[in-house]
């Protein structure tokens, strides 16, 4: 396990990072004021997407989720400030957000340890993944890097929708492998 701030290895049960002292509580002031509801898998606080693109990505997220029971996926677009990083933002959003799926009039709150968030910093041009506790030990650093690499070319060209769709496609494969590993009890 790694700390989201200093990226150094920490113990499974560490209440705070022994290297930098980071915990969720300590991050709160830094990200206060950001909208916490994630509707239908897309969280665009940076205003990077148009209506059609948002709908398209929402459909891609739902398709990705549809094969998994207990897994919820979301994509967040944000413009981070200098002291903020995509890793700490993903960590904070994973634990602070409210996943709302279904119709807007009667939203259904999704709770659980199967959350996966793809965070994209549209200002700093970086992207990272955050996983719920279900995936602890079932996904490797190399696999994470490969999933994000799948959309690298499109993201470089500024095509956020295509980049995200490619990443989601690769993520689906990774999640399948992770579930199968969990069923076998083989942690990485």
């Amino acid at each position, binding site marked *: *396990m790694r*700390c*989201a701030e200093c*990226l*150094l*290895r*920490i*113990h*499974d*049960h*560490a*209440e*705070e*990072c022994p290297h930098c002292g980071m*915990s*969720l*509580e300590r991050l709160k002031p830094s990200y206060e004021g950001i909208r916490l509801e994630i509707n239908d898998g897309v969280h665009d606080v940076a205003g990077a997407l148009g209506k059609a693109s948002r709908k398209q990505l929402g459909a891609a997220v739902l398709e990705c989720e549809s*094969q*998994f*029971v*207990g*897994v919820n996926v979301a994509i967040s677009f944000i413009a981070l400030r200098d002291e903020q*990083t*995509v*890793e700490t933002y*993903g*960590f904070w959003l*994973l*634990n602070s957000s409210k996943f709302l799926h279904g119709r807007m009039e009667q939203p259904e709150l999704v709770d*659980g*340890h*199967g*959350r996966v968030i793809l965070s994209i910093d549209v200002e700093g*041009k*970086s*992207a*990272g*993944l*955050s*996983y*719920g*506790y*279900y*995936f*602890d030990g079932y*996904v490797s*650093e190399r696999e*994470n*890097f490969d*999933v*994000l*690499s799948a959309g*690298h070319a499109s*993201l*470089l060209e500024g095509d956020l929708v295509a*980049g995200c769709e490619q990443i989601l496609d690769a993520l689906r494969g990774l999640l*399948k492998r992770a*579930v199968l590993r*969990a*069923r076998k009890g083989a942690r990485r």
Partner: protein
Amino acid sequence: MSRPFIIVALFMAFLQAGFSQGSRTQELYGKKGLAITEQILSELNLPEWLWGDALDYETLEKNYRLVDDELLDSYFQTMPAGGLNDPQELLDRVQREKLEEVIASHDMKSAMPLYVNVLAYGQKIAVNESEVKGLLSEVFHGKNALVVIYYLGHARGAHGYVILDGQGFVEDWEVDELFLRSAQDASLQVGKHEEILSFVTEFSKRSFWLEQRLITPVMAEKDVSVQEDEASKQHGKLTEFLSLIHDHSLSLFLFLFVLLIAGWYYLWSTRWRKYVMPDVDIAMRQGAKYGANVSDSIDFSDPKISLSDQYEKIKNREL
């Protein structure tokens, strides 16, 4: 006793002897005789192998006759349509159709059409061989032909003639070999109908080698080019294709079945399969409720920063 009485008694005795002899003759050589012979043979309970290639005496008796003037015209003085000549109707309709199909298939591919004359087992031809050749020369004058004289139920007795335009009858050891080998293969079959079908099929196959040797030099000598009819060529290809499919139908079926299973498995695993995360031990850390597992980020600000450089940086971070 009076003399007339003695004469009448002697006459009656002779008559009686004549009748009894007559009835014995019928019993021995007529249908009753055959039945009795059959009965005796069945009572003897002889093993099957003892019969071997023995004659079917009943059929022999029924069909046995000379191929005389009446039949000679049918066999050797007319060119049979369809290549099969069976004026005595020894074959039934189905068998005739099967043979005609084989002959038609041969004729489509060969420059030497096949003619099969079917005779009954043991029949004799009233004219000698040179006369038969004379008759055939008139019929096939200026043409190539493979003429087979086949005795139904006796493949090994089959013989015939290879007639080549410009050269007449081909007298060659290869011709004898052609008949011999075909007969050997056919005699493995059980049943006279299967035997003749096998003989004609084998004969057709083997004749191509002979044709290769005989036809090409003649054509080169005469500068004759054979132009196949386009329609028959197309039909030949189609027939070949259909027979290929027929021959490999089981393999094709298995292949399609495996393909179907593979396709279904692919669709199931990519579209329809539901992945359920099992209950796993959860270790909460850093005050996080749902998870604290983050990946390394990738940078897409500058195309000059390659992915491999970024991965190297991640790998060396802790070193």
